[in-house]
């Protein structure tokens, strides 16, 4: 009611700020409490129609449940008229809310229907619930903003670890990976065909390495020292084949120090190797 009274200004006033309910509106109502040049800044403070509505309600110091609909509707519409006049970009939501308020106001003027006929929810009840829910969220958002938080109130206590010597783990291999890689090698070898991988049993190849390793630590060994009784016949065969293969590949020498003496085995060029190692040690 106040607003309409305010809007009755002397005729001939050149500038019409807004049309409220069909009446020309020449000055910003006093109860808006905003100087016109601050309006834009002020409106940016609102997070939408619910926020604006809440502001209007709270300014009257009334409970949401008892919204003075007529009064609030007037004020709300006055606001958005002013906004429109200042050519501010107005989100559609503000206009939807204006329409809703107008509808609620008109309903309240009509005699109330019986509840049986009233299937829709009362738009006023819906609005009140939405306002309440929004207000709860708004309040809690403000509280969250005040909570201590990282970067502003909380800082991690950091301790240097760059000086620590830390061992990095080594890569793992699965046997299948290695065998698949080997399969590729074998395929390539087949294609090249001039090269052959001899197919001694693996145990023979392994034993060849073992025998060579034994010989590294000794000038020579007795032939018999390369066989182990506990390995049985099969072990003897493996060792014998390994010795023959090593000999064939000229990796070992088999010799007799004198006629009828027991056979001895030594790494090929063992003497040379001994000289070399003493040389490198020096």
């Amino acid at each position: 009611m106040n607003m309409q009274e305010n809007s009755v200004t002397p005729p001939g006033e050149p500038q019409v700020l807004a049309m409220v309910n069909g009446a020309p509106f020449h000055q910003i109502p006093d109860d808006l409490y905003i100087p016109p040049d601050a309006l834009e800044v002020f409106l940016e403070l609102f997070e939408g129609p619910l926020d604006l509505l809440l502001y209007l309600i709270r300014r009257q110091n009334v409970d949401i449940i008892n919204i003075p609909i007529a009064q609030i509707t007037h004020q709300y519409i006055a606001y958005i008229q002013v906004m429109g006049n200042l050519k501010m970009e107005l989100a559609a939501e503000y206009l939807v809310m204006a329409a809703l308020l107008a509808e609620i106001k008109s309903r309240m003027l009509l005699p109330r229907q019986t509840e049986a006929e009233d299937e829709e929810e009362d738009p006023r009840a819906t609005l009140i619930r939405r306002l309440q829910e929004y207000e709860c969220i708004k309040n809690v958002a403000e509280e969250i903003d005040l909570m201590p938080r990282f970067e502003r109130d909380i800082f991690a206590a950091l301790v240097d670890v760059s000086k620590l010597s830390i061992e990095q783990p080594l890569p793992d291999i699965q046997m299948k990976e290695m065998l698949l890689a080997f399969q590729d090698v074998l395929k390539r070898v087949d294609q090249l065909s001039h090269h052959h991988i001899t197919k001694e049993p693996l145990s023979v190849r392994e034993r060849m390495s073992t025998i060579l390793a034994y010989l590294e630590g000794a000038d020579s060994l007795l032939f018999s020292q390369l066989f182990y009784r506990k390995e049985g016949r099969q072990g003897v065969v493996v060792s014998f084949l390994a010795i023959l293969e090593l000999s064939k590949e000229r990796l070992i020498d088999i010799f007799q120090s004198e006629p009828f003496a027991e056979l001895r085995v030594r790494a090929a060029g063992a003497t040379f190797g001994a000289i070399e190692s003493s040389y490198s040690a020096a």
Partner: protein
Amino acid sequence: MAQSSPVIQLLDDVNMEIKRIVEAILFAANRPMTVKQIIDVFPEIERPETIEVQDAIEAIIEDYRERPIELKKVASGYRFQVKPELARWVGRLFEEKPPRYSRALLETLAIIAYRQPVTRGEIEDIRGVSVSSSIIQTLLEREWIKVVAHKEAPGRPGLYGTTKQFLDYFNISSLSELPTLQEIQDFDSALDNSLNLIQEESEQQETTPPHPTRPIGSTHNETATV
């Protein structure tokens, strides 16, 4: 008695050693560590029991009570941090100003925190305005929210929920530590009354007492502590 004391001594030493290691791990980690994660840092054959690590953590918290840093439990575990009351001093170490967040972002975040899982449409319904994509984007990038599922509705919109990182950032270990959300008042009866009094409304309202604020309901708590 004389024989048993070396044993006790030994046990104490072991626990002290665990405590030292736990403390070193928590300082070195540079991220919150759960008890499980702490245990996993120990070599397999030397892993302490959960209770031993928990005891160590309790003892460490006590040790630092009077110091300017504290061992704090947040959602992703325990972390050492400077106590908030020293923020005024420590903040000056960093030239960059801490980020400020708009009301729109904070309200969106609050709705997701208290109403999760929630769609963007539902957030817009509560706020009464559309939610800009950049707000959702910012929240996703900060890893404060994530899409937890999709709603069985046209377009299968994403349902948003908050993350542990969100709780970590706000220095809490569970949603239940967030400020209490006032429950929406039961207004149906009040409304009926006021509707009956339409014609006289708005004159006496200044004198109506404010409604008592009620804490969040138990159903809300359940959602909150997920």
